[in-house]
């Protein structure tokens, strides 16, 4: 067996993908696939072009992005706050930890219908779902992170004459930032999951809503186009998050 050059892995992957798409397309054109269930790549492509062409996709993209980024931001802030407080105040930890463990154990998307009842079918219920997905994740990474903080670093700051503020600035903040950044990619994925599932359950806008619309009208081409779009969106955000992580954690 010859060794594969790892630098060209992406070329090989792309090539195989292209072949698969070509076979799929050919099968579609040869009427071997029912377009009702399995539209060909070109049909999916034209559905995508259509979505962007008449501009009606933008409000949906905006809705999903707003919900996902809103939930992400809120989830990170609240997750950090709760994590820090729980790590520093044992009484609070006693209260919060079991709740978080429970929330962590269940598939949190089951809360979607409840949030619709509580917050209506507008943006807030989607933000809430994104938020709860992200907050629990961030809480645990901060909570466990602070409890495992490197004692030696703390002692180093103290022996160099640092006070509490110096400890927070030079040890606690960078540590917390590192843990949050470490789970940032997963959090981004969670945030979009929350937004889309929330929209799928009940909404009048958003990619999740379009998905449920495509489903109710049996429009497989539209559905696949939206799935491709969601994939693309998440991949772009992922790579941005990845870059941010790589830059900020360049010391590790």
């Amino acid at each position, binding site marked *: 067996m010859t060794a594969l050059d790892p630098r060209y892995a992406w070329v090989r992957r792309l090539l195989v993908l292209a072949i698969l798409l070509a076979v799929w397309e050919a099968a579609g054109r040869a009427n071997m696939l029912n377009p009702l269930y399995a539209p060909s790549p070109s049909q999916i492509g034209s559905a995508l072009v259509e979505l962007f062409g008449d501009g009606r996709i933008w409000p949906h993209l905006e809705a999903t992005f707003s919900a996902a980024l809103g939930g992400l931001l809120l989830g990170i802030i609240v997750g950090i706050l709760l994590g820090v407080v729980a790590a520093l105040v044992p009484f609070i930890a006693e209260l919060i930890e079991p709740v978080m463990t429970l929330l962590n154990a269940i598939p949190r998307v089951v809360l979607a219908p409840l949030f619709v009842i509580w917050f209506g079918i507008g943006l807030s219920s989607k933000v809430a779902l994104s938020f709860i997905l992200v907050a629990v994740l961030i809480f645990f990474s901060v909570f466990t992170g602070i409890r495992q903080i*490197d004692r030696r670093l703390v002692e180093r700051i103290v022996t160099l004459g640092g006070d509490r503020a110096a400890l927070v600035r030079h040890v606690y903040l960078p540590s917390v930032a590192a843990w949050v950044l470490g789970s940032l990619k997963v959090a981004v994925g969670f945030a979009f999951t929350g937004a889309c599932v929330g929209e799928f359950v009940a909404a009048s806008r958003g990619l999740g809503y379009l998905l449920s619309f495509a489903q109710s009208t049996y429009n497989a081409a539209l559905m696949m186009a939206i799935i491709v779009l969601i994939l693309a969106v998440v991949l772009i955000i992922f790579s941005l998050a990845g870059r941010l992580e790589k830059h900020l954690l360049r010391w590790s």
Partner: protein
Amino acid sequence: MRVRNLTISYSGEPVLEGASLDVDEGRFVSLVGPSGSGKSSLLRALIGLQKPLAGSIKTGLSRSEIGILFQDDALLPWKTARDNVALGLTLNGTTRRAALDEAETWLDRLGLGGLGDRFPRKLSGGQRKRVALAQVLVMKPRLILMDEPFASLDAIVRARIVRDVVALVEREKISVLLVTHDLEEAISLSDAVYLLSQGPRAHVTQHYAVPIPRPRDPVRARMHPAFAPLYEKLWSDLSREVDYPRAVAA
């Protein structure tokens, strides 16, 4: 520095009991003891990281005049070598600019010129040790407490760093208290050696003067005629100290 009747206990039986030792100004003093005898605990008590159960510590120095070099480097991983070295100065009110300049000077002095921008992860063990050393020296300490700082280094790197450390403390007339389990290292570097018996309730024995002149080359010191007899004596005393409590228990 004068330490009198220091007793350290975590919970239950004291780790160290009634330890007394002196480090006179400009002297290099070692404390040799087996692992677990309480050497690290003693140093932590001297620097105030650990509250002793009893005893007194007099240094006549301010907090920032005492430096400590830990067993492991404990550099902040998210700060560059230069920022790590500058840290102590900025924490004590020096402006960042001045602190960074001073840090650069010490990096150069310790043979780390050009490595100031590296993060600790990108440095070798020996380089990290030198950064940790610069971090302490930049504070212009009058006394440095060292907790087996060279133990993790391989022999050649270790010999070089030890030689540089000795040259620096001799030149700057810095007092040193080195704790180690390495008897040879203790004799070759020190003016005086104390032995610490096996814990719990470890105690410090009388001190042994090392009659090897300064300035000293740590490698050459081992070939000095006074080295072997002293080593012999300390070794037999240490063996007795280590085995004695077990013999009693048996």
